[in-house]
């Protein structure tokens, strides 16, 4: 049930990203909301559940955007794997500390994608430009915190437990992860 709800949330995010946040075809500052879901799934969900959620969402993004079939599933898959690896290796597992990682992974995956496309599909004319991509990474980071909170709320409600606490920044006590298990 929770998996299905998160798939629907992903589809909704894709639709919102391509309509509400895109007033015109040349609008430069649309936040990549689908990537926030990729990051959340990588940080919070298991391997199998993550794939089930991300596959339909990335396919829909592929339909909505671009002319190269398979680009978004590749970006989602790479981003998800990278973030999964980073969260496993990261000593602190708190959403506030994971947000910069989301932006960094987004930037890295985008850069690698453009590099590969430039080599493999030069006719696509994909050019890397730092200022807009840095701005977009900033937007992803900006939208990550409220969306992570929303996803947390949704996940907890679906599991039947939720306590809406304030921003979890520098809390008291030991902030380092006590175990190495995946959530």
């Amino acid at each position, binding site marked *: 049930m929770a998996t299905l709800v998160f798939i629907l949330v992903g589809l909704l995010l894709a639709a919102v990203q391509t309509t509400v946040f895109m007033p015109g075809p*040349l609008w430069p500052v649309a936040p990549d909301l689908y990537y926030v879901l990729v990051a959340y799934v990588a940080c919070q969900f298991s391997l199998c559940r993550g794939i089930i959620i991300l596959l339909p969402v990335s396919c829909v993004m592929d339909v909505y*955007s671009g002319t190269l079939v398979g680009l978004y599933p590749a970006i989602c898959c790479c981003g998800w794997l990278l973030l999964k690896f980073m969260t496993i290796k990261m000593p602190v597992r708190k959403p506030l500390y994971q947000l910069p990682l989301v932006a960094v992974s987004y930037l890295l995956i985008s850069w690698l994608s453009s590099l590969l*496309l430039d080599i493999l599909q030069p006719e696509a004319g994909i050019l890397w430009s730092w200022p807009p991509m840095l701005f977009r990474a900033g937007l992803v980071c900006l939208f990550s915190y409220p969306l992570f909170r929303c996803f947390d709320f949704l996940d907890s409600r679906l599991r039947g437990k939720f306590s809406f606490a304030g921003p979890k920044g520098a809390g008291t006590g030991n902030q380092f992860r006590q175990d190495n298990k995946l959530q």
Partner: protein
Amino acid sequence: MQRNNRNKKQKDGSEGFRPVLLGGAVLTLLLIFLVFIFGSQEFGPVYKLVLDATGPLQKGASQFAVPFRSMREKYLDLLTVREEKERLLQELQKCRTAAYANRGAVALNARLRKLLEFKESSGLPTVTARIVGKDPSPWFRSVIIDRGLSDGVDKGMPVVTGEGIVGQVYAASANYAKVLLTISPSSAIDVLLQDSRVRGILKGTGGSTYRLEYVLKTIEVAKGDHVVTAGYGGMFPPGLPVGIVSEVTRNRRGMFLEIEVVPAVDFSTLENLLVIEQKKKEFRPQSEAGYP
């Protein structure tokens, strides 16, 4: 004693004269009244004189009363000013909403009118479509329209507005289609410089301008030249407006000019489109289409 008697006699005389004086005065007034009632009713010279004499007095008094009257009116107005203000604010809000809606309607009307003019003047079979989604990626420029195979829209069909060309259908489902915009970096179309009839390849830059390529340095191209579709490949009908040359650069190296073209269509405000229905032709983006 003698003085007292004299005073008494004088008193008696004046007391006898008083009734006569009173009677005379009453009779005079009565006479004046009768003259007024049964007279010629004309404003006599005496009255005129009195009016002239008392007029300034009245005038001064009335001017003196003006500030008091206005103060009273202001006070009375203040009593109702709050209700009036709220009512006017509500009215202003309604007017602003109506004006906003009207501006939108006027803009939509103008856009649709241009589409209709193009539809009528071109004589080509067209399908009107509305953009329902835009590509958020910085690398691609495409839009989703609300017409598909069931409406006669198919892959490869050109898409235009009243101002000029917009792109071509890249993929179509039963009810929706994906349009690759001409500003997309993967788009390339055959064009002509309208006056010199020189052919070139127009490529998208992903931004708000095109790049016109493969125009030889020996050819004179000026800022402001109009660029139209060539129609050689059969993809776009010939003569459709594409844009205007905004910058021409002659590099020392190379054979070709570097030409920047400003699109005829304002892509940032794109909403309604026309898909030109023409025979299905294999659509291949850029290099696959045989362009160098």
